[in-house]
């Protein structure tokens, strides 16, 4: 018992020393998880289904921006304003590809089943099939080994906060993530499209009686979620590199984040992402690096056990 306490106290000591750096890294990851998680939550809202193919939206965004960056940046190391431009282009390319792929997924793997009124199991199977098709297709066309992306920025510590160096990369993610998530929140709360998304999420049949075009709304919901997922794919790939299986683990974590925050709840998904990223980052102090991925899974099972509706509760169809 004494040894056990000693084990944990020594680990808490490391956690104390490394708290701020871990927090910064964790929040940066958290924003990425949040960006992917809103895709799950949006689709869950309108269809009551987990979009298993969302991981491939993320992967597609990563790959598309990888090729564009390779072409634009090459081996140069951009700085300043050009760097900002490249990142904007990357986000745009990633987001566009993501939303196109998400639209294709909806068109091929979901809509025909919706027209045939298939059982829920069929949707899950066709989505997982679409996911396997997409990432293996990417593997076939773009090679099956990991490559690092041409860096559109020069990474260096910008400033320190409580002794933790905040890197350029972290700042890019904070700003890009926060802006996009804020934009999404406004979109869903204020615009006509947002209102139709919420209406379909609340009650699709009634919404269609009120003149909401369900097919169009569902397609656009996929596309909006896909845009954020694809952009997250770029931001993630920029740092980690791209490979055809890159979507699997981050998407699983993003789903955990969505459940943690309360599925169907947009702000919850972001909060869940941030909490998950931070907790995962802190778990470095306790776990060997190869087990970091277990943290998210443990959290998922724990949430399902203790509070399956998530921190902020399920809110299908209400604004944010």
């Amino acid at each position, binding site marked *: 018992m004494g040894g056990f306490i000693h084990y944990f106290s020594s680990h808490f000591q490391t956690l104390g020393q490394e708290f701020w750096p871990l927090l910064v890294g964790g929040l940066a990851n958290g924003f990425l998880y949040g960006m992917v998680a809103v895709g799950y939550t949006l689709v869950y809202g309108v269809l009551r289904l987990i979009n298993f193919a969302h991981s491939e939206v993320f992967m597609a965004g990563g790959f598309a921006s*990888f090729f564009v960056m390779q072409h634009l940046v090459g081996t140069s190391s951009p700085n300043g304003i050009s760097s900002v431009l490249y990142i904007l282009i990357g986000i745009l390319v990633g987001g566009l590809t993501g939303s196109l792929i998400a639209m294709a997924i909806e068109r091929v793997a979901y809509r025909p089943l919706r027209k*045939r009124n298939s059982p829920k199991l069929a949707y899950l199977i066709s989505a997982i099939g679409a996911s396997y098709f997409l990432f293996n297709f990417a593997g076939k066309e773009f090679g099956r080994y990991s490559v690092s992306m041409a860096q559109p920025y020069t990474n260096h510590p910008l400033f320190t906060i409580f002794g933790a160096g905040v890197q350029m990369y972290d700042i890019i993610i904070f700003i890009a993530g926060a802006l996009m998530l804020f934009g999404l929140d406004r979109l869903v709360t204020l615009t006509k499209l947002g209102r139709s998304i919420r209406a379909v999420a609340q009650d699709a049949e009634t919404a269609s009686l009120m003149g909401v075009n369900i097919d169009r709304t569902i397609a656009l919901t996929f596309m909006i979620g896909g845009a954020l997922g694809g952009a997250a794919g770029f931001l993630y790939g920029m740092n980690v590199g791209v490979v055809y299986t890159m979507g699997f683990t981050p998407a699983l974590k993003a789903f955990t984040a969505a459940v943690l925050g309360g599925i169907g709840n947009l702000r919850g998904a972001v909060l869940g992402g941030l909490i998950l990223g931070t907790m995962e980052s802190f778990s470095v102090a306790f776990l060997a690096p190869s087990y970091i991925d277990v943290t998210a899974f443990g959290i998922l099972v724990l949430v399902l056990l203790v509070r399956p509706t998530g921190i902020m509760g399920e809110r299908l169809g209400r604004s944010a």
Partner: protein
Amino acid sequence: MKSLLTNKWLKSFGITATLMVIICFMTGPSGSNTDPVAGFSGSLFNSAPFLGLFITRRWVVFLLFALIAFVVQQGWQAYGRQVKVRYAKVMATPRELKSKRPVRLGTYGALLLLALLLPHLVTDPFWQVAMVQQIAVYVLLALGLNVVVGFAGLLDLGFVAFYAIGAYATAWVVGSLPLPPLFGHALNNFWAIPIAILIAMAAGIILGTPTLRLRGDYLAIVTLGFGEIITLFANNLNGITGGPQGSRIIPHFHLSLGPLKYVWGNGPIPYYYLILGFLILFLVGFSFLEHSRVGRTWTAIREDEVAAESLGINPLKYKVMAFAIGAASAGFSGVMTASQQNFVFPTTFSLFFSINILVLVIFGGLGSIRGVVFGAIVVQTITMYLLHSPPSGYQPADLYMYIGAMLVGMMIFRPAGLLPATRRKREIVQLREEAQ
């Protein structure tokens, strides 16, 4: 322009052509991340034979295919109903015969005889090994997954985890892991069977109970994660599982009943018969299960959970039961694989594995035992054939691309599978009619 887009013929040709473009890219050469266009341009502009008649560019070939498919599809739309009626008339006598008990028993008997004689008919060593490792074991796995996905309607994407648990439990019991064996000394493989089944079942219950209380789709993602986690543990717990190097040599199954001694070794054939024996046991067991009280309860829950609950059924209990039975049969298959292959490696239990089993179940027919057996044999034989003599442009890693595409296609066009279970088919048709 708008009239062009709404033109029925043009639209249906567009769909066919898109499908053909996708198939054209799928079957074409591969690209790489330094030359991402290579795969696509090669798929379009390489030359290929058209039905063995003449050689031309691939895009022309696939355009011709698209035209043929379009004509067939239009013809089917125009005359399909008549063909169906005529087919039903022709098949009326065989169908009536099929439902007669002696005929059915005779068919089963003939199939059993064929299964018994198969190792003597197929003598190619590649196929003999494939028959055991890739077909018989996979039929076993598919039958187990069918209980979860087919009978109870729960999507289990982490089937590989229970398979791995079974395999590692075997290695543990026979003393081939760094971890000391269960009872202090190595045991016969036969002891591994109940132990592996128990451990896998326990894992299934522990994982299933919290998840199955909630929506069915949560189970899918939790099991997906679990499959990944198990591989992670297998790969990293060096002191327990042997890490990436895997286990030490696992002995074969062996019997010593007094004077009678027998070792399952020397080629795959003895294992073929051993697995066949268990397979028949499973087949009979699961058939009874399907029509038992439990099987009917699963159907009730699958079709309408609220109604089932209002009749006093505890859905959680039955769902966990199905999940645990599936886990147990995966664990059992793990014992077979570990003993036959003599080793356990973490890489065997990849992410792709569960999907591979799922496609066997879907292809033959969810919930239909004969369909699943048929589907598993057909799909695995095709897979093995592709591995044995790959056509140009095919790499073994492409397999999962085809499997993914097949899952989507099956769900759209034939969700009940090739040999559908009567009940399942009715469920799907009913849902469709409700939609119209």
